[in-house]
């Protein structure tokens, strides 16, 4: 079976089967990452982000360094897109229908359902800490791989994770006290 990195090499030569294979392996983890990072259940928005990530992978396949892991590269691209979207959303007011969806999402997040509770907890972390937590906890990336995705030193990732866990524990403690 071809490795992910070999498939990217074939993708750089325009091989559609290589893209299909990569999609089969990585579309689900990518979807989960984008959904958790944005905290959104808006399927149209998630699909846009996912599809744009894959298109960027195709465009940049020729410059992929095969000595690096495909997964860290893929998550790095997706992370940049999520950040771009977050910045744009902060700069312009939401259209009414999107604002309604966001309010519905927030109301759902406030329900006692455990999964939504975790989402609301993660939403309260700063973006850098949230990214590190998601990559480390849900995608099983090592600290070094997480650092590669976030383009920062491993020590910074460790520190972000410590802060994130401390903050999450504080939030859980506050909730229990209330």
């Amino acid at each position, binding site marked *: 079976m071809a490795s992910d990195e070999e498939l990217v090499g074939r*993708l*750089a*030569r*325009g*091989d*559609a089967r290589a*893209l*299909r294979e990569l*999609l*089969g392996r990585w*579309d*689900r983890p990518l*979807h*989960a990452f984008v*959904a*958790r990072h944005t905290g959104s259940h808006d*399927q149209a928005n*998630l*699909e846009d982000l*996912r*599809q744009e990530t*894959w*298109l*960027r*992978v*195709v*465009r*940049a*396949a*020729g*410059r992929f360094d095969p000595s690096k892991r495909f997964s860290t*590269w893929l998550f*790095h*691209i997706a992370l*940049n897109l999520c950040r771009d979207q977050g910045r744009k959303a902060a700069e312009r007011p939401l259209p009414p229908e999107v604002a309604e969806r966001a309010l519905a999402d927030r109301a759902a997040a406030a329900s006692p359902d*455990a*999964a939504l*509770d*975790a*989402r609301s*907890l*993660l939403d309260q972390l700063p973006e850098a800490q949230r990214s590190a937590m998601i990559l*480390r*906890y*849900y995608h099983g990336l090592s*600290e070094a791989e997480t650092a590669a995705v976030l383009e920062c030193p491993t020590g910074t990732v*460790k520190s972000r*994770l*410590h802060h994130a*866990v*401390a903050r*999450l*524990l504080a939030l*859980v*403690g506050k909730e*229990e006290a209330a």
Partner: protein
Amino acid sequence: VTCEEAQTLGLLGGSDSLAAARHRVACARCAAAQPRLDDLGRRLTAYRVEGPPPGHVERTLAAAAGLLAARAAGEREPRRRLGWAVTVVLGLLPLVIAANAQLVRTAHAVLSGFLPTYLTTYLVTSLSLFLALLLALGCAAVPLLAARQRFRPLEESHA
């Protein structure tokens, strides 16, 4: 292992997990925080995301079809250019050789009219070698120049 590290390792795992577990048992502060850590772990684990909607793979492949076609064309283009360049060079080679031979013959005829034979032979041989060298360099440069003209498909400056 500090309390912070022990709690982070307790939640996320890592190379020092065993030392962290020992610390959490021995440290009163960490032992007190353990129920909260377990609760946090349960909440995070319960956060599951539904899979992508069906048909997404096909939609992505359709969206990428144009880019993939451009990449495949980009792969063929350098070989096509090289083939073209070699054909042109091979077509012109007999003409260049004939022109060079004519030049050498003319030089020999002119020089032998007023120079001694040994000097004429030396100069004409030098000229022949020089022309042969130029021809060899010219032919060798063709594939290099064709490779430098590599067709670049659309690529992003940042990924």
